[in-house]
């Protein structure tokens, strides 16, 4: 038997076998992991390394090698060095795991609280769950994790057939994906409920919501994705800059998961790496949680910092001795923080995704096998293609911000004081009414070459009396832009809003002159309203070719005209009475349309009184002064971003005070040459 073992050794390692000396030969009982048989151990010293020996252990069953393995045997002092560093890392890992556990428990608790209050958006949470589940499952299969799980079971099958074992391993994979997706969806669902409840910083959730609604082809979503992918390089580079600085001896960035080296589809695995749990938990849940209680942004950032640092350092550190199975996140929290606050949650997630993809792809590209290098390039190419597609769509796609912003806006409480059944019915009816009213508003602003337009309308109650619209006028290429406000609030206002919209659509079919349109609308409204209700409106007719805007103002707030080149603002305050207040002749006399000529870069802000009259808890009004100051800060911004800045500024001012009036804002920006 000894000869057979020596022959097997020779066959395995060739002439090197002569360097090994047999040091042990013994009979071995069958143990859990080892076969019964004769066990041989050969050893070889390593020159200049008294603490280390190369050992080959073989177990023979008759003349068959049941097991043979080469290994290094280390002396105690080597092992001590190794363990000492490993233990220091383990402490951080334990702390991180503890924090994650606490966060998960808080998520579960709050999730049930919001679920009881019916404040969880189950549709969106379910979409997120489905996407995460699918991505995680495909990832595990393409990365070879399922195969790795099966390997050991297949070698020593304890029970069941091969098919049954495969089925069980698949089930295990699906369960892992299920819990991963469930945690992600619960975390985000709760975070989003907190955002909606607090009613602040909703814009940071808007693009992610739009993505979950399947609006991949909107400019808003794709723009954020493109920016995120571009900024992903910074996130990816930071761990390497930290290590290259030489300030931290034991640090190493994240390594490639070893299993990917033999994965069935490593390129696909690199492109499907799961969303960063750490970043997701911090910005999808913890920040909204803090936001629901704290308004000062610097306090929020300070609170998020320790979580981020813990996650970062643990993620970077533990990789030194990581077994390769765990994929840790790494980035400097400061950069992630900047991306989140300057852009939004989706941008940050896209950046984290891009950083993960390039880090994995780099790991593949650094190997010598041509197949792995090709996979690395495929992953990089896939990311590049996604970025290019997002860039193209961000320039040419549809703008759906209006609708999404409305969906993100905090849902007001209704039916207070009623029985639960009545309240539920009322809520359902108001939900339908709210949706119907939102659907009356344009789904997307018109795309006009040389102009960027965006708009939003947020009712203060379940339904509102504000209105904006874009009218296709009979004159070629002329566009009518309408912002209107019906006096009063709630259901009556919303009914007159619907009537006004219908009248506008009807009259503007044959007429392009804004003053004539307003006169006709006034005539009808005056008959219907009988002075009980009135409507203020500003109608501007844009001639894109000549860059002129002819407008008529029926008692509405003056539009702000920002002359970006001169750094000045002026108000479009042509005189005019509200619609439905006075009879035709008096109204006609009051109305004086004006025409202005816009310059490249100029911006027009059409708005309703919900903005300047927004109030905070101290009863102070937001006012025109603050509004003009906020507009000044928008000089360099795209229309959609200017809209965000304005609404954020108002939201910050009012704090937790519930809105007392509808807010409507339309921003038109003339593209620069």
């Amino acid at each position: 038997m000894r000869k057979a073992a020596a022959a097997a050794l020779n066959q395995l390692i060739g002439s090197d076998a002569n360097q090994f000396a047999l040091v042990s030969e013994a009979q071995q009982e069958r143990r859990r992991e080892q076969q019964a048989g004769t066990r041989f151990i050969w050893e070889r010293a390593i020159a200049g390394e008294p603490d280390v020996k190369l050992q080959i252990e073989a177990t023979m069953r008759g003349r068959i090698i049941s097991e043979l393995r080469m290994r290094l045997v280390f002396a105690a002092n080597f092992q001590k060095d190794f363990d000492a560093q490993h233990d220091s890392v383990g402490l951080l890992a334990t702390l991180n795991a503890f924090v994650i556990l606490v966060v998960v428990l808080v998520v579960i608790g709050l999730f049930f609280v919001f679920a009881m209050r019916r404040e969880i958006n189950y549709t969106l949470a379910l979409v997120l769950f489905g996407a995460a589940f699918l991505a995680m499952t495909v990832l595990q299969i393409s990365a070879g994790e399922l195969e790795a799980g099966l390997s050991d079971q297949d070698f020593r099958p304890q029970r069941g057939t091969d098919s049954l074992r495969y089925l069980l391993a698949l089930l295990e994979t699906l369960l892992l994906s299920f819990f991963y997706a469930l945690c992600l969806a619960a975390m985000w669902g709760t975070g989003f409920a907190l955002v909606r409840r607090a009613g602040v910083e909703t814009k940071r959730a808007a693009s992610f919501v739009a993505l979950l609604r399947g609006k991949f082809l909107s400019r808003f979503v794709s723009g954020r994705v493109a920016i995120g992918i571009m900024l992903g390089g910074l996130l990816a580079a930071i761990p390497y800059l930290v290590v290259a600085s030489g300030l931290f001896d034991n640090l190493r960035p994240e390594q490639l998961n070893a299993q990917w080296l033999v994965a069935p589809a490593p390129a696909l695995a690199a492109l499907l790496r799961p969303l960063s749990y750490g970043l997701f938990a911090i910005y999808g849940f913890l920040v909204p949680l803090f936001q629901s209680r704290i308004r000062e942004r610097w306090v929020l950032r300070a609170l998020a910092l320790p979580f981020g640092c813990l996650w970062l350092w643990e993620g970077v550190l533990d990789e030194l001795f990581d077994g390769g199975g765990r994929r840790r996140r790494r980035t400097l929290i400061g950069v992630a923080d900047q991306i989140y606050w300057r852009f939004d949650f989706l941008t940050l997630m896209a950046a984290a995704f891009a950083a993960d993809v390039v880090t994995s792809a780099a790991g593949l590209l650094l190997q010598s096998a041509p197949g792995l290098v090709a996979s690395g390039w495929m992953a990089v190419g896939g990311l590049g293609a996604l970025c290019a597609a997002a860039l193209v769509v961000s320039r040419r796609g549809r703008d759906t911000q209006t609708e999404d912003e409305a969906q993100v806006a905090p849902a007001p409480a209704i039916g207070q004081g009623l029985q639960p059944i009545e309240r539920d019915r009322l809520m359902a009816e108001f939900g339908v009414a709210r949706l119907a009213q939102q659907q009356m508003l344009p789904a997307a602003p018109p795309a006009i070459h040389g102009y960027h337009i965006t708009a939003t309308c947020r009712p203060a109650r379940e339904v509102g009396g504000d209105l904006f619209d874009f009218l296709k006028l009979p004159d070629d290429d002329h566009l009518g832009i309408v912002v209107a406000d019906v006096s009063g609030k709630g259901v009556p206002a919303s009914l007159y809003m619907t009537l006004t919209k219908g009248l506008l659509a009807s009259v503007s079919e044959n007429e392009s002159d804004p003053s004539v349109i307003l006169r006709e609308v006034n005539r009808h409204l005056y008959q219907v309203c009988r002075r009980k209700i009135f409507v203020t409106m500003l109608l501007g007719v844009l001639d894109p070719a000549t860059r002129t805007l002819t407008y008529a103002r029926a008692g509405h707030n003056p539009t702000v005209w920002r002359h970006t080149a001169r750094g000045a603002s002026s108000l479009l305050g042509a005189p005019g009475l509200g619609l439905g207040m006075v009879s035709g002749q008096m109204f006609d006399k009051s109305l004086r349309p004006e025409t202005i000529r816009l310059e490249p870069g100029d911006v027009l802000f059409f708005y309703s009184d919900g903005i300047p009259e927004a109030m905070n808890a101290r009863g102070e009004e937001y006012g025109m002064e603050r509004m003009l100051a906020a507009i000044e800060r928008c000089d360099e911004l795209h229309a959609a971003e200017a809209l965000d800045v304005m609404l954020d500024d108002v939201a910050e001012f009012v704090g937790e005070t519930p809105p007392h009036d509808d807010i409507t804002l339309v921003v038109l920006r003339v593209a620069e040459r």
Partner: protein
Amino acid sequence: MSRRRLALILLLAASGYFVFALLVPRFHPSAAWRYQMGRREAVARGREAAQRLYGIDVSGWATRLTAEHQAEIEYYLARSGARAETSRLSPITTSVLFVENVGQGRRVRVEMSSSGQPNGLAYRDRVMNAPGQPAPE
């Protein structure tokens, strides 16, 4: 988005990816692995080793591949550098398991270094895997 902001983002993007590309070959922990086999080649080498060492043709058998990172070996190799004695060891151990789904239900596992040199073997069949099987004479 204003041109200035777009230019800033593009600049940050270019800088980030450039710095990443510059530092990765030096500091990426997986750069030292120099893994030389693809999945297909690992299976081919495993099949050849099974034929040579056990005389078993494993063509048509199911295959399961795993790659495991050996932290201690990597630590040692990084500390001691390349040596002739340890040339068969690498931070990554690839294991190819061949499973015979019919007949004797044999299993052959071949373990290899990053360069594809076999450094471990294992064999099981239905009899050996049977629970309570007594030790052989």
